[in-house]
């Protein structure tokens, strides 16, 4: 076998329905390892649904998804395998309110990776330092600001040492002054070479770190290009319209 690097995510002809409503139409997408992708589009365009299908928070009805070579099918062992390797950061943080910050981060490594507590907490502390809040480790999520909570959520995902990170509008629920602290963490992750799929409206972030920007509308991928091309010379009319609305041009 030759030592080729296999793609992080492969999606082929994927369709997703809610009852009779088709949320995703014939999606094809390949994400290489280490690639940083930003997905944007108007609300209801299916961008969140797309990344939630990747770790099977939503089931797709047809087409194929494979993550790091593991097919996402009816096999529960495969779903577990994929969820171990794919982390996710949510719009509303979804921190566990009855656990301290440190317990939030150490929980999954202990339960899923079966690490002893000492090792799990040591690793968790490392990632809390990475997101620059080691001093809050013993507090409960309710005692932190929105920006701090979202950074804890990122540290919690990192503690599982995932190979792919999914971001579902990570800054949309934040007050404006807290957005940058979260974006800084995301930029530094990108610089470390993490494979990232970000659903976000932060076009500055997209310009700065994205390898590819994807525009979705009505459940379809309309356009995908590197940021210079995407912002400088949008091809599709719907993309142009969206950009002019969001960038105020």
């Amino acid at each position, binding site marked *: 076998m030759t030592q080729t690097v296999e793609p992080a995510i492969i999606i082929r002809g994927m369709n997703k329905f809610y009852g009779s409503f088709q949320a995703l139409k014939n999606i094809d997408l390949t994400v290489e390892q280490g690639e940083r992708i930003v997905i944007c589009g108007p609300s209801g365009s299916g961008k969140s649904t797309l990344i939630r299908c990747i770790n099977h928070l939503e089931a797709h009805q047809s087409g194929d998804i494979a993550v790091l070579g593991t097919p996402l099918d*009816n096999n*529960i062992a495969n*779903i577990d395998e994929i969820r171990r390797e794919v982390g996710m950061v949510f719009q509303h943080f979804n921190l566990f309110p009855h656990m301290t910050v440190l317990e939030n981060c150490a929980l999954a490594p202990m339960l899923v990776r079966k690490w002893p507590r000492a090792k799990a907490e040591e690793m968790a502390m490392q990632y809390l330092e990475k997101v620059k809040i080691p001093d809050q480790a013993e507090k409960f999520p309710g005692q932190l600001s929105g920006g701090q909570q979202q950074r804890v959520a990122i540290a919690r995902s990192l503690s599982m040492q995932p190979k792919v990170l999914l971001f579902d509008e990570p800054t949309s629920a934040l007050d404006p002054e807290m957005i940058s602290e979260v974006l800084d963490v995301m930029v530094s992750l990108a610089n470390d070479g993490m494979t990232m799929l970000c659903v976000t409206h932060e076009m500055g972030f997209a310009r700065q770190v994205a390898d590819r920007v994807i525009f979705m509308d009505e459940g379809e991928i309309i356009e995908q290009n590197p940021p210079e091309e995407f912002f400088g010379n949008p091809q599709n009319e719907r993309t142009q319209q969206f950009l002019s609305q969001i960038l105020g041009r």
Partner: protein
Amino acid sequence: MLSAWNNIKLRNAVLQILYVGGFVALIVTLIVMGRTNLQEQGIISGFDFLWKATGWEVSFSLIEFTSRDPYWLVLVVGLLNTLFLGVIGLVLATVIGVIIGMARTSANDLARLLGATYVEIFRNIPLIVQVFFWYAVVTRFPGPRQAINVGDSLFLSSRGLYAPGLNITGLSAFLGIVAFLTGLGVIVWVSSAQQFRRMEPARKSRLRWLILLVAFVVTTVIFWIGRLPDTTLVSMPALKGLNFRGGIRVSTELSAMAISIAIYGGAYIAEIVRGGFKSVGRGQIEAAQSVGLTNWQVFSRIRFPLALRAMLPILANQYVWLIKATTMGIAIGFTDFFMVVSTAINQSGQTLELLGILMGGFLIINFTLAAVLNRINRAIALKGDQLRT
């Protein structure tokens, strides 16, 4: 095998089949085991026994019943008694509950203290203790000859409460009550239905009084038509020999049950009423006051309608609970549905069938009550999410 177990669709299907199958198997096994066991005791299963004569009497019945009447009729007697006690209990409990609940939301802290005392005492003592207590009280009244006499028309004795009644046929009593209740229903409909929303308040009020008058007249006429020949319309209880004749008798069992349910249920309903009024936001009341409504108008147009909407779902649960509580009548020998069924099981041995009838009866009563209350609830529920803003 392991890989098949990992298949999510297969696993889900197997789990569901096992669960539903296991449940059905359990029920079927119980029934089959029960049947064979009963057959060994010489009891033939089936519903034929319903048409056999019971051979026993009941102590209280709204309709004619003798020991020669069949089993199905005794079940009807029990069901009617349960409903009868249920309706009396619910109405009395609601009246008490509303009064105490209003006292508990009053601005006057003496009235609040009185309400709180009532609720805390009667809610925190089990209903069955209260039933035994009241039964002991009512059976210790003096005998008929020394009965407590209230204005020569009400007599309290150890045989029960005797009150003036009407000498009319059962049918006309039933129709008359139905007519009057229909009138009340129309009034509620006029007050709340969409069609009448835009009517002038003064005209609406006159219309309501008119309907009430018509209902009253119709009821009286029905009673008059149905009066028994050769008697006065109103029958007064009077002491004849060792007991009272005439009037209507409320048995000690019925009155003990009705008193207990009314008092106990009243305490719970009072809390529901209080909760309903508490849920009406201060802002709503301030807004009403700021447009110049009087205190009564604020209450009748704003606070009460909003509080009622908050109360109804919980009230529905409470009503279902109180209906179920009528089964405690068996403790003092009130022949309700449950007591009739358990006597019938004892006498006939048709255990499975009667158990099915018992459960089915209560399922029907409670699901009907819940469905009716849900309908009312939906009809008056606020549309959209206007309360949240």
